[in-house]
């Protein structure tokens, strides 16, 4: 039994002179790709290999990057490997003649199906057959019952038997050779050695092959084997067309597919001629109407050379062209792009018709916890502004744009689950509907966490009366008015019975889209009410000074600022701060002056003044501005780029003693990549040289709590916080060389900090009172172990070294 190509794949032998309207139609395969993000944690029941799961929102968005390869490869699978030029009719045959399962596959499990390899995908595609095979295996199979080595044409097969196929091979009738198993033909056949098939299945298989357009003629023949199995031999003649020397790629998305006009069998030659002419004209018009496609010149040239080298245009060549073109699209992230047709065959030009995947509609949907579509609280404009322009209607769908949208929406922190799905538009052939499904987080949340601290009572024994209930009460009201405004507050105390002792609180209101949600300018207004308690590093002893009584600096106040985000990392913040600063000693009494230990061991309270007013309590209002320029990026996990921060506190003369000052800091950090490396996951990061400079200065009133301190893990490593001094102007320089070792890095560093002689310009000269040097250097080496840095730092003032463990980065 043999099939020839159906009518509209006019074979070259049929009308050789007029067949300019040859076309091969690859399948209009449906794509289901799904991008999804779960916030705050991925759901366990999600399909892990099809869903693009983003990290919990607390992590930096950059952490998403290493993952991006995975979904990409997934997407490319179902699309790059539909390895046959299957006509649409053939495809639907497969889908609907099999069982309901085939059709279902596309909508329900599309993403999951993509998880397999290319060939595998194809076998899934014809899932009914695969099922049959499975059944056969479990129930056994029937022997062919014929003598061995007997060629059996397909129509001689018994319809009641289930044959076990032990071998499959292709036989080219023209060259009279057997095609190797690695040939692309094998991608099209679903028969697998070892499978069990019925005659009907084998017939279907043959039909599929026949209608795919690759073959002019194709036959299936069995050959009996002594062990009762059969070898399947596929005899074929490849379709070929006239040699071509031009290549053209057009975007036929959203254009109606040309329907082959019915051709009457009893048309006269003239009518036929007329008919083909009209078809030709129509096709020319179509080409003209079609939009140019995205394919770059480089690929175009490559394909052209492929066309020119071959003596004639064969089905195989077209397959290769299609593979090359589709590969480019999929590599670039145009996941919905497909070569749908080759037209103009048997002319000098090969026309490759591509449906690139034009977005015809963008749908944003809100879902409740059960997945029902609901009316969301979030205003659509909030989501819309996060979408890249490439995801708008009229653009071509790109998976990277989808991922970008996913990341952007995720960074809003409003949704627990985000899915970005491209879906074929049924009403608009070749169109893509981008569906964004969002699950909103609860608007209100409140949390109470408690802790009990057992305080030693008399004689050091914990007593019942001394158990203190402590904890944190926090609440959050997110997404007010659907505009991502939020109100949050928290109160923490270690003793709810006596909260006045150490009550820490913070209330914050965040108002994004200050310029309106439609304005591209991204400014956020924030106001907060806070308090904090910190140990002042100003009142710290130098080397050899054992105990300097600590001074606590309590700040409480109100802050209002506007942040303008230029990029994800670069921003400009400006605002006003109104605060009350209280300095306290160890026993929580207000301390107007630092204490010092006298040489005879006594303590005197006449150290440097702690506040500007001299009373231990300062109130002040000042303006604050901070501009951060950060163009750092990760190159295989190593940070590279530059970060500049300028911060300014400008006293306005409002407050105790009318503080008028200008306190400024400039930080410049450069991460220089020392070697060019290939980017990609798994590739080693480059060695990086870090150069860092920090200048801080103050003109005008400078209370000791605002003095710049030298020493500490973020100033000069190897020293304690403030161990080198507290000054009016400081300069810190540091350099670090990071050398990648396996999947982490080791580093060498040298740092220096100096007070520029300005320690005495701080009232009371705390640097000298606590016998500090005012400057110091350190050098050392360390290794990064996950989040922890382990380093050995040598303090150059004393020449001694020590090992430190620190969390986080120095720069």
């Amino acid at each position, binding site marked *: 039994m043999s099939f020839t190509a159906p009518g509209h794949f006019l074979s070259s032998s049929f009308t050789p002179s007029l067949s300019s309207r040859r076309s091969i139609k690859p399948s209009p395969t449906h794509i289901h790709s799904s991008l999804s993000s779960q916030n705050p944690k991925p759901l366990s029941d999600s399909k892990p290999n099809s869903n693009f799961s983003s990290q919990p929102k607390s992590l930096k968005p950059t952490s998403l990057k290493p993952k991006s390869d995975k979904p990409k490869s997934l997407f490319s699978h179902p699309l790059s490997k539909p390895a046959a030029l299957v006509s649409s009719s053939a495809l639907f045959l497969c889908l609907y003649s099999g069982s309901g399962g085939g059709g279902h596959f596309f909508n329900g499990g599309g993403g999951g199906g993509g998880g397999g390899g290319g060939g595998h995908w194809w076998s899934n595609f014809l899932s009914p057959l695969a099922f049959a095979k499975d059944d056969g295996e479990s129930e056994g199979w029937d022997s062919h019952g014929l003598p061995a080595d007997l060629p059996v044409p397909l129509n001689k097969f018994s319809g009641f038997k289930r044959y076990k196929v032990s071998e499959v091979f292709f036989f080219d009738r023209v060259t009279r050779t057997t095609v190797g198993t690695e040939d692309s033909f094998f991608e099209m056949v679903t028969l697998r050695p070892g499978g069990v098939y019925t005659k009907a299945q084998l017939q279907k298989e043959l039909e599929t092959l026949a209608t795919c357009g690759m073959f002019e003629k194709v036959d299936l023949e069995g050959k009996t084997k002594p062990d009762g199995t059969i070898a399947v031999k596929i005899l074929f003649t490849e379709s070929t067309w006239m040699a071509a020397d031009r290549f*053209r790629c057009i975007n036929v998305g959203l254009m109606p597919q040309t329907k082959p006009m019915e051709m009457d069998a009893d048309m006269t030659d003239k009518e036929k001629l007329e008919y083909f002419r009209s078809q030709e004209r129509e096709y020319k018009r179509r080409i003209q109407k079609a*939009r*140019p496609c*995205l394919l770059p*010149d480089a690929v*175009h040239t490559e394909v052209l050379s492929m066309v020119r080298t071959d003596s004639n245009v064969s089905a195989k060549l077209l397959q290769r062209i299609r593979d090359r073109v589709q590969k480019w699209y999929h590599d*670039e*992230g*145009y996941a919905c792009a497909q070569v749908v047709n080759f037209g103009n065959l048997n002319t000098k030009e090969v026309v490759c018709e591509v449906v690139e995947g034009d977005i015809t509609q963008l749908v944003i949907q809100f879902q409740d916890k059960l997945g029902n579509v609901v009316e969301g609280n979030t205003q659509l404009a909030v989501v819309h502004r996060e979408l*890249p*322009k*490439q995801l708008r209607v009229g*653009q*071509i769908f*790109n998976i*990277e*744009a989808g991922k970008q949208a996913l990341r952007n929406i995720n960074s809003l922190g409003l949704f627990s689950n985000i899915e970005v799905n491209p879906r074929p538009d049924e009403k608009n052939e070749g169109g893509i509907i981008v569906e964004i499904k969002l699950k909103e987080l609860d608007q209100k949340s409140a949390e109470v966490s408690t802790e009990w601290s057992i305080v030693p009572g008399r004689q050091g024994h914990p007593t019942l009366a001394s158990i203190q209930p402590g904890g944190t009460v926090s609440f959050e009201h997110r997404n007010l008015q659907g505009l991502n405004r939020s109100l949050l507050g928290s109160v923490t105390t270690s003793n709810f019975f006596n909260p006045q002792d150490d009550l820490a609180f913070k209330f914050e209101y965040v108002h994004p889209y200050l310029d309106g949600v439609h304005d591209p300018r991204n400014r956020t207004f924030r106001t907060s009410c806070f308090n904090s308690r910190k140990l002042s590093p100003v009142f710290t002893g130098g080397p050899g000074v054992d105990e300097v009584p600590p001074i606590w600096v309590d700040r409480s106040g109100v802050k209002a600022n506007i942040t303008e985000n*230029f*990029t994800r990392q*670069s921003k*400009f913040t400006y605002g006003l701060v109104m605060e009350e600063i209280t300095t306290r000693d160890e026993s929580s009494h207000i301390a107007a002056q630092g204490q010092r230990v*006298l*040489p*005879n061991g006594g303590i*005197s309270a*006449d150290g440097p003044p702690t506040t*500007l007013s001299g009373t231990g309590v300062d109130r002040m209002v000042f303006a604050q*501005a901070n*501009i951060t*320029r950060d*163009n750092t990026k990760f190159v295989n996990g190593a940070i590279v780029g530059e970060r*500049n921060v*300028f911060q*300014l506190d*400008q006293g306005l003369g409002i407050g105790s003693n009318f503080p*008028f*000052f*200008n306190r*400024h800091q*400039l930080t410049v950090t450069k991460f220089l990549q020392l070697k060019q490396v290939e980017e990609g996951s798994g590739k080693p990061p480059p060695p990086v040289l870090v150069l860092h400079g920090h200048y801080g200065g103050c*003109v*005008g*009133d*400078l209370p000791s709590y605002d003095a710049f301190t030298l020493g500490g893990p973020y100033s000069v490593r190897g020293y304690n916080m403030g161990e080198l001094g507290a000054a*009016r102007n400081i300069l810190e320089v540091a350099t670090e060389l990071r050398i990648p070792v396996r999947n982490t890095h080791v580093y060498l560093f040298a740092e220096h900090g100096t007070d520029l002689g300005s320690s*005495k*310009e*701080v*009232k009371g000269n705390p640097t*000298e*009172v606590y*016998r500090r040097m005012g400057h110091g250097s350190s050098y050392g080496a360390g290794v990064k172990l996950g989040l922890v840095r382990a380093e050995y730092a040598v303090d150059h003032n004393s020449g001694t070294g020590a090992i430190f463990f620190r969390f986080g980065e120095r720069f």
Partner: protein
Amino acid sequence: MATQLIREWTGIQHFPAATQNKLLELLGKLTKENVSSLTILVMGKGGVGKSSIVNSVIGERAVAVSAFQSEGSRPVMVSRSRAGFTLNIIDTPGLVEGGYVNDQALEIIKRFLLNRTIDVLLYVDRLDTYRVDNLDRQIIRAITESFGKGIWNRAAIVLTHAQLSPPDGLSYEEFFAKRSEALLKVFYLGGPLMWRDPLASPMPVVLVENSGRCNKNESDEKVLPNGVAWIPNLVQTIVDIALNGSESILVDKKLIEGPNPNERGKMWIPVILAIQYFLVKIIHRAIKNDIAEEPRPAWEVENFSLNGSEELDELLF
């Protein structure tokens, strides 16, 4: 303290006649120059004999002196008047404690001196110390920082325990010269201001021997091994300094607290702000530059250039 009783200078009568004459002559010289009062500040390390100098000059036991421990931790002013002339000598506690300059002592001295004028500073050290170390430098710097460099125009170095036998091979004169040179060097090196603006006159170095066993000459004056009667010599130096034409040091609040660093440069804040405004502008421009230069993934560029490249594509095909 401010209302301290000014007593008649009776101690002067206990001096030998030659000394008395000399002193009266010098006082007369002062009154002739319309100087009716003289305030002398005595400073130095602990235990070098500051208080003893005061007692020796006054001629009575005005300040308690003990051989083994430092007396008061606070300054004492002794005032004596004679024939309309008032002599104030301020004795101070030692400036060194535990190997460091005692800031607290200095602070107390400064506060004590508030609103007083210092005519003469006597910086006291021992002659029989051989070395000059960093501590001396620190003390001198501390004094300079407290009272300004001008104080050294009104200062004399006083070396006590002058009655000593110098180490072998050195004559007394040589030893004295070497010691004073070493000390003066500290002044010129330790105070960075010194060589930039040299003193009006080289700082005098005076020898003193407070001990009761001090040798005496024929007129019963206490004399040094080099035969100089030291009390008249000291007073002579003091008077010379008082009349050397330089400004006396008025200790006011500003001097004590030093130039308020918080006030310095305040008027420049608007200018600084203006400069900072431009700095912010520069950074802002750099950010814009970053955005423009940011390498975009191909998909962002391709879709965008679509419209523009249409003609190009037509040409190509």
